[in-house]
């Protein structure tokens, strides 16, 4: 199947998958921690935090992209510090695309995990504690396994969101073939070139197939985990 693709199409496809995968994996610990905070704790400013986490869902992506550019650009306060301290650069790199995607996918990730955390019978955690499990062990052996359906759903939603991410990415890291030009950006580029319609359509079909595959894989995974955890695919 891959023989049918041109090297540049393949490049865009690989980059899209890489950016989406890295963004999901990198945002998972943050997403779980936020979901945990929101589901289990009461603290001043909780509704504010909740709102901020959800902002990427309602803001125009270009706003997120621009804010990232201002903060994480080479001259930006965070970007400059990261570059000088750790040598990490986001601007105009695929890592920047992943950062933008992670931020855009975060609300979906947090929502899904939070819901599954809230659905856990907390007395199961108490039971584990009376059996000698420390708080960390309870988290690892009870809370995380029981919220696995939500974690997987959240990862998929965030992954799918990343595959489709356009506005924040192009604003923050521009449209560099082989570095930041993911599928949507490549499609956009072809639509701007006279005679690029056929190319754009090919990429659109690839996009559709990729998204479908991601959805199917996650569906199977969620079903399996539900069977393991709850005994049925509810």
């Amino acid at each position, binding site marked *: 199947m891959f023989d049918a693709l041109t090297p540049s199409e393949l490049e865009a496809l690989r980059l899209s998958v890489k950016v989406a995968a890295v963004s999901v994996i990198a945002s998972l610990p943050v997403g779980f921690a936020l979901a945990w905070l929101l589901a289990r704790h009461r603290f001043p400013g909780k509704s504010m935090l909740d709102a901020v986490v959800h902002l990427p869902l309602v803001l125009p992506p270009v706003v997120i992209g621009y804010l990232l550019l201002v903060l994480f650009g080479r001259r930006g306060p965070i970007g400059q510090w990261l570059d000088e301290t750790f040598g990490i650069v986001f601007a105009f790199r695929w890592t920047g695309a992943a950062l933008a995607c992670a931020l855009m996918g975060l609300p979906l990730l947090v929502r899904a995990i939070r819901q599954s955390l809230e659905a856990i019978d907390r007395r*199961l955690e*108490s*039971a*584990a*504690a*009376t*059996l*000698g499990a420390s708080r960390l062990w309870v988290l690892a052996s009870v809370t995380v396994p029981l919220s696995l359906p939500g974690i997987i759903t959240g990862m998929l939603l965030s992954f799918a969101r990343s595959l489709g991410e356009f506005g924040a990415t192009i604003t923050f890291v521009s449209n560099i073939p082989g570095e930041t030009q993911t599928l949507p950006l490549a499609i956009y580029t072809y639509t701007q070139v006279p005679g690029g319609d056929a190319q754009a359509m090919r990429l659109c079909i690839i996009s559709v197939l990729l998204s479908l595959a991601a959805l199917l894989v996650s569906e199977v995974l969620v079903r399996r985990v539900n069977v393991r*955890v*709850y005994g049925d695919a509810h």
Partner: protein
Amino acid sequence: MRIEVDVARQLGAFRLEAAFESEAVVTALFGRSGCGKTTVLNMIAGLLRPERGRIAVGDRVLYDSATGTDLPSAQRRIGYVFQDGLLLPHLSVRQNLLYGRFFTPEAGRWADVDKIVSLLDLRPLLERRPRNLSGGEKQRVAIGRALLASPRLLLMDEPLASIDAGRRGEILYYVERLRDEVGVPIVYVSHEIEEVVRLAENMVLLSDGSVAAAGPVRELMGRIELRRMIGRYEGGAVVETRVTEQDLTSGLARLAFAGGELLVADVDALVGETLRVRVRARDVSIALERPRDISILNCLRGRIVEIGAEPGASVDVRLDVAGTPIIARITRHSAHALRLATGQEVWALVKSVSLDRHSLGYA
């Protein structure tokens, strides 16, 4: 092992202020729903913090507001069998059983896996998942899981509540076995006096968040003033007996106690075994003279020590039958007609068939 509990906490409009001590193998926490039984258990287990007080098991202080001691649940080594089992749904029965054992330091592991598994007949269940177990099976696994963490004290919160009435005897049987064979002290919460009489030596009577009475079950069951709390219908004296004869032709067993003997039908015990019999007050009649030509087999001679003063159509009359208290519930009308008075010698009549399986505890 000595258990000391002295806890206080305000929970909304409800005030819990309970203190008791016990050295019995099984201590029952008895009272109506909402009287604070489970709250006390949660405090012992470290799931709920008292405002002040002290909790100690043996020489180990788990909580003491005076010294600021408050061990986390995980370090208390208190087994807890919850009302609905609370097995971990994502683990198999085997994994559930071994869960607590994994966290128990090697030196503190007294529970033997094979012994507990066969004691509770868990072997056929090991590879199953909690969702495929019946209520009784879940509860057995929950008991096994708690025991395999080698606890110093086992808490049981109405373990029969989530089980069909028909299968409760089965779990009671396992609890009896574990009481007699494992030797870990148990605090057993219940609102069924039947379970308390059958299992426990000591009883703590909780009412509206405080201890109304505490002491040996036998003694408390013989106290008229507690009958309102124990339940009008179920209250009565508890007699420790020994099986002296099993007559297979008549199906009657002869149970001897200090004040005489009781003939009871269908007793599932061997000669020589001790048996706790609850003689419900409503099953006891009083006669001034020993009746003749009557179907009732148990006629016990006793002296009236107390006549209850509570209002209503019935009164409880406490008799002393050679040192053993027996309570009779009769109508106020009869008490007047017979001119009963304290100090009077009377006969207490108990129908054999009224002493059924539910009245017997295998001590």
